[in-house]
């Protein structure tokens, strides 16, 4: 590759990525030269600034035509942008949480906490934009490895160490399975480019070896289910979520999971649908497996959550269940899949970050992650209790919240395409979920706790309010988000090389 060629690429499409990269690099350098005892709080502010600048770049990119660079391995399109915006907004909110976490704890992480969040974010963004299995994999690993360290960032905390260790081992297994699946796909089609794979799949040789192809995709599905914490690769999630620092848990349950969905959507939709259209037989063959995974995930997540006393662990199972819900539109496979998935992920982002913000606030003051930490919260801080109620109601999927609209949309897409079993599983498990969600409400309002008043910091307040307002606003007037998505993002771009 000549320098000329290199310079001729439209690097502008990577502006948000570059911003994050530069900020992360600078942060690590500044951290290196800062006095050991100095507060690392300004680093977080700097990181936040970087995220905001990246958001601005990304917003200006809305409506830009599809561009691909670096021999079609990296691609800018509406799909990538829509997901990048989610990653950026979520990471921004999480950085604010992380800042507050520093205020409460004295652990020695020397700033790596902040720039590792950014490198993980960078990995997620790469995953959204890649058009090649190799770059996808690099993005995936960048995200994963950063997350492994983040999970164990409280070096002296045994739980945190355990979390990190389990995360690494499981991640390794998942990566191996994913790579194995990818190697089959490569072997069958002779290319790693997603669009090339799509074309390659039409060849008669592949048709004859459909079995191998299905196996390859099932392995990919299993490997990638690790990232979204869906069955059968969900078991790490409760331990890791419980052991990690709360901002990291939030990151894992929101950004990392959303990136996983972006990846799955991308690999499966492009390689199957861009050439052969919606009625490809392989897609139809694969549908039952995804439906199976979705159903099992919903059941496992919601049923086991019932027994949890640790609030972070409970939300971990709840997030497993939510992964099951998000897989549902994927089964129904229509153009609505993007709208439904994106909206659900947006709602999930808001309500989950909000809920974790409250959890971080409460558990740190109580020094306990048990459900009883929430007892009598309404008496101690009515504001926080009301905020938590909004998030819980949304997570449970009741009307006037974004969670309801998201779930309703998914439910309708399943009904509309005749997946009645899956729709019923969804309804049944949702009903089950009411029990453990409302348990939190009962604790907050009807149980007596200590009566000492507690007050959240400004940063916490901002995160809670932003999330609650978003949750309610998109619940009352979802058209705001859906119009934005509809007008700004043309998802059919994904299928045009």
């Amino acid at each position, binding site marked *: 590759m000549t320098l000329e060629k290199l310079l001729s690429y439209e690097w502008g499409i990577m502006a948000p990525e570059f911003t994050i990269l530069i900020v992360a690099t600078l942060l690590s350098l500044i951290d290196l030269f800062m006095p050991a005892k100095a507060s690392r709080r300004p680093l977080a502010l700097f990181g936040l600034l970087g995220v905001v600048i990246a958001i601005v770049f990304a917003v200006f990119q809305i409506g830009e035509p599809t561009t691909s660079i670096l021999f079609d391995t990296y691609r800018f399109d509406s799909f990538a942008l829509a997901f990048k915006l989610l990653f950026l907004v979520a990471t921004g909110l999480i950085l604010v949480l992380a800042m507050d976490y520093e205020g409460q704890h004295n652990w020695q992480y020397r700033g790596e906490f902040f720039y590792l969040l950014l490198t993980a974010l960078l990995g997620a963004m790469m995953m959204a934009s890649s058009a090649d299995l190799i770059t996808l994999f690099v993005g995936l690993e960048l995200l994963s490895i950063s997350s492994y360290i983040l999970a164990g960032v409280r070096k002296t905390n045994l739980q945190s160490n355990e979390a990190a260790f389990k995360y690494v*081992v499981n991640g390794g297994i998942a990566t191996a399975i994913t790579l194995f699946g990818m190697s089959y796909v490569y072997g069958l089609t002779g290319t790693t480019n997603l669009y090339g794979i799509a074309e390659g799949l039409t060849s008669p040789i592949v048709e004859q070896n459909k079995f191998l192809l299905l196996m390859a995709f099932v392995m990919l599905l299993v490997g990638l289910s690790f990232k979204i914490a869906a*069955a059968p690769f969900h078991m790490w999630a409760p331990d890791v979520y419980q052991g990690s620092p709360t901002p990291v848990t939030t990151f894992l349950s929101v950004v990392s999971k959303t990136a996983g969905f972006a990846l799955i959507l991308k690999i499966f939709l492009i390689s199957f649908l861009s050439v052969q259209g919606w009625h490809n037989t392989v897609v139809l063959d694969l549908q039952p497996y995804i439906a199976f995974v979705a159903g099992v995930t919903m059941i496992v997540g919601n049923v086991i959550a019932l027994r949890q006393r640790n609030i972070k662990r409970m939300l971990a199972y709840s997030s497993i269940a939510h992964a099951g819900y998000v897989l549902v539109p994927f089964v129904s496979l229509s153009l609505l899949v993007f709208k439904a998935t994106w909206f659900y992920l947006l709602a999930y982002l808001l309500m989950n970050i909000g809920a974790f913000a409250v959890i971080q606030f409460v558990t740190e003051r109580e020094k306990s992650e048990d459900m009883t930490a929430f007892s009598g919260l309404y008496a101690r801080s009515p504001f926080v209790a009301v905020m938590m109620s909004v998030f819980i109601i949304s997570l449970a999927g009741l009307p006037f919240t974004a969670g309801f609209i998201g779930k309703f949309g998914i439910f309708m*897409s399943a009904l509309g395409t005749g997946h009645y079993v899956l729709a019923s599983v969804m309804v049944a498990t949702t009903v089950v979920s009411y029990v453990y969600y409302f348990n939190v409400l009962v604790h907050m309002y009807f149980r007596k706790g200590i009566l000492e008043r507690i007050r959240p910091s400004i940063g916490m307040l901002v995160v809670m309010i932003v999330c609650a307002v978003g949750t309610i606003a998109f619940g009352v007037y979802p058209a705001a988000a859906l119009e934005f998505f509809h007008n700004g993002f043309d998802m059919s771009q994904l299928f045009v090389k």
Partner: protein
Amino acid sequence: MNPIIWIIPALPLLSFVLLLLFGRRLKEASALVGSLLTFGSLILSLVIFAGQWGGESVKATMEWLAIGDTVLTVGYLVNPLNALMLVIVSLVSFLVQVYSRGYMHKDERFPIFFAYLGLFTFAMLGLVISPNLLQLYIFWELVGVGSFLLIGYYFYKRDAREAAKKAFIMTRIGDVGLFIGMILLFWQVGSFELDIIFDAVSGGDISEGWITLTAILIFVGAIGKSGQFPLHTWLPDAMEGPTPVSALIHAATMVAAGVYLVAAMFPLFEASETAMTTVAVVGGFTAIFAATIGLAQADIKRVLAYSTVSQLGYMMLALGSSGYVAGIFHLTTHAFFKALLFLAAGSVIHAVHTQNIHEMGGLWKKMKWTAPLFLIGAMAISGVPLLSGFFSKDEILASTYADGRYGLFWIAVVAAFLTAFYMFRLFFLVFTGESRSSDKKLKVHESPGVMVFPMVVLGILAIVAGYINTPMSTLLGDYLAQNQYLDIHHHETHWWIPVVATGVSFLGIFMAWLVYAKKKVARLSESAPDFHYILLNKYFIDETYDYSFVKGTRGFSYLWYYVDRFVVEGIVQLVASVVSWFSKIGSKVHNGQVQIYGSVAFAGMAILLLIVAWLGGYLT
């Protein structure tokens, strides 16, 4: 005027949010916040109401959700009926909040009470301006939630908890009917919008059978909410809530929602003779049925509760007899005099600390304001001429007669007699004679001004509200007739109907006077003890439910218990042991056995791959 309409329900919602967040700091100033915001709603409602005289119906919607080709909308609809309801709801809610300032004084959870009132008012206001069934249904459920919270306000009392649960479950039974009706209508018409449904009905796009079915299902919802037979049992129990709540729920809001629903869906009902007859018969039966129970109750609030059930029956009877105006008219006047009666009863309870009328008596001299106000309310509900109840009841009787339902007409006349009788039984027992209180030292005080003021306002309304629609001037009728989907016809007036109504009303009062003030005639409990016993026990409806449904279900469950024990349990045991086996593994995993996680993932993958292979026929 468009933005105003949104603000009307938004203000009580704001009150709810504010009080929930800052109630602790506001303490008893919460009442001020709640009342002022609701007063704002009242003023705006009056503006809307004024604009509806001769004005056009206003409907505005915006897209809420688009699923495939189906677009769901939210918005508001203002027509004469809705505007009238806005005024009634916000007015009564405002007065109740002012009253509660005095009644709930020194209650520990004072701000929460007002927050709930705000939520409830919001739900009810949102309900009456809903332009489509889906939105209506959401608010309908929200009203249910609000009533649950309010009835169960004294949640530390077992009865209150039970009553709240009962109210919620009983109305939920009705709601299922409404929900199915709504879905069926959507299936038939393809829209939840009321006007589209009405167009389809009048255009003959739905068959007669479907209209009847959906109308009756929707009426089932109304039966639940409005406490009609056989789903009425929650309503008297709901008296466990604080008295201002009873006034709010029973006068203008929750129970009126059922009547409102039938009125709002009137074009649908009108299209089916069967549905109309169902409404009329259920209404007429409830009217007399509840009135007889009211004869024997000893709890002042329960008497009023059964009277509410009975009066709601009247309204349904009117609607079922094509008496649209009569039904709404009675809804309006009833809202005022029933709120008045409840608030006055609350004032009495506040003074004597008991709800048992046999322990009251002789309060006329001691409660200079409450007693005459209660008398006004009692006279209004009994249909004493020139008070509001007289005109509206007369209108109902007239429209029932004009519709040719002579049997129901005479039932309604008898119910009117019973109403006058039990209301004045209440009046004479509570206010005249000597005090029968067991606590001789009890000093009875008139309630504070903040409680008297709302009663005075309602007292005036209970007198004058009737003049909006007299045989001479059909003001309300003309106003309500400005609805393109309604065909309101004036029926001819029979001079003898008001005479009969007046006659039975005075007869009832006279009888009550003979029995309870003069004590010339033996009481029901002495002259017909068996009948009295039946009435006292409310026809054993609760017991019937208990024996048929609850015990039946329990018996059924015993049957299943044995099936379960010997058949299912074996399987369950197996499953349970598998689960516990898993949980054992889970706990091992906590000790660091991360291998298990990997094994599960591999096992999962292996299963999936096996299925692939098996389905693909590669294993054979």
